[in-house]
């Protein structure tokens, strides 16, 4: 078992891995940017839409939550371009898939937060003459959003982990870069270990931040995290 570890080779190509990290964060960031508002919209449609909207929205959410993200990604990358006759590059397919996929999960976070608000808040808002839209905007959402923060950030971290799938359609994220470095240096043990290390540092850092925030929110009695 006398294996000679040599991390020097990996660190010579460290800038490639960092470039991969930038790409990972780019996909994650864009998916959040599109996924969160879309999630809110889906949640509101599922909660307050007429049944002809509510039911299909519910089905879409459940479908996106109950199928593997890699199946969705392959569908958007390999199937959709043929269907609509438009070329879709790996980057666009990734952003599209993860925006939709995460929006389904964010919708459930929003929905959970909104229904956790006491009925009395609705009634009180109605009593002072607010209609439903205004109640939602001024009374319910501000309280719900505060409660949702931990669940929300946990989803964002999950999203970042899920984006590693983009390497399978050759978008140059950390894992993809690691794979190409491994192929040119034959140092797969070191390369993949360093790649895992990079993910760990970034994701664990975020997790610690979330936990800190959770503790802070729990102290002020404003959280649904359990």
């Amino acid at each position: 078992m006398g294996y000679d570890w040599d991390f020097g080779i990996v660190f010579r190509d460290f800038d490639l891995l960092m470039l991969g990290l930038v790409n990972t964060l780019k996909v994650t960031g864009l998916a959040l940017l599109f996924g969160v508002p879309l999630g809110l919209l889906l949640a509101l449609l599922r909660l307050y839409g007429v049944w002809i909207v509510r039911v299909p929205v519910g089905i879409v959410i459940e479908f996106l939550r109950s199928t593997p993200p890699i199946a969705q990604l392959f569908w958007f990358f390999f199937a959709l371009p043929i269907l609509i006759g438009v070329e879709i590059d790996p980057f666009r397919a990734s952003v599209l898939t993860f925006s939709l996929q995460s929006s389904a999960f964010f919708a459930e976070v929003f929905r959970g937060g909104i229904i956790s608000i006491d009925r009395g808040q609705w009634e009180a808002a109605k009593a002072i003459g607010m209609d439903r839209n205004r109640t939602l905007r001024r009374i319910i959402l501000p309280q719900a959003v505060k409660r949702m923060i931990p669940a929300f950030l946990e989803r964002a971290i999950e999203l970042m982990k899920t984006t590693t799938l983009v390497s399978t359609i050759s978008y140059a994220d950390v894992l993809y870069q690691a794979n190409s470095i491994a192929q040119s240096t034959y140092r797969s043990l070191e390369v993949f270990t360093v790649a895992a290390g990079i993910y760990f540092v970034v994701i664990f850092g975020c997790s610690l931040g979330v936990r800190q925030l959770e503790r802070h929110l729990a102290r002020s009695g404003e959280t649904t995290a359990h």
Partner: protein
Amino acid sequence: MEYTWDFSAVLANRQLLLLGVRNTVVLGLVCLVTGLFFGLFVGAARYSRNPVFHWPATAFVEVFRNTPVLVQIVWFFFAFPIISPFEINAFTAAALGLSLNTTAFCSEIYRAGIQSIDRGQWEAAKALGMDYSRQMRRIILPQAIRRMIPAFMNRAVELMKMTSLASVIAYGELMHQAKTISTIEFNPIEMYTAVALIFFALIYPVAVLVQRLESRFRART
């Protein structure tokens, strides 16, 4: 632009797809059972006040919870064989990655479940003269496990979805079979649509059951 859907090639390859479903279920079950089993010990070690148990268990859990599962699978397939004392094929690599991942997540469920039991239960069991392992086995776990069931089933749902990642290292589960068939038959649209539907049919019933159990549990407390 009008595309004519044609599922005949999907149906013609149903044997291959069924084999894929079988391999998906086998991989999922193996990882679920090992994860549930070892998760209990890792959870107990995390709960322990002895630093010799506590810190390694904590490090293990944090590493597996805070790295992407695909990276874990790829690591076990491409990196681990170099130092591994035994032969690694696609199945063992995927099973190792997914089992350890599930172990880490399950250990947290055990820990949270055990911590949710009122301290008075421990004290009452101690007052009856039970030692630690008996308190745990006879009093705490039976109550805690009931509370953990929805969370475990949630893990099973997540795990089923994660098994599709084994396709990346060419283990012949459903996703991989679909990939192979679609390159032979040139039918990515029908094939990937069918695969998404099959996964949905496998996973959604469990997801619904979890929701039911969770709302029943909430109604009771």
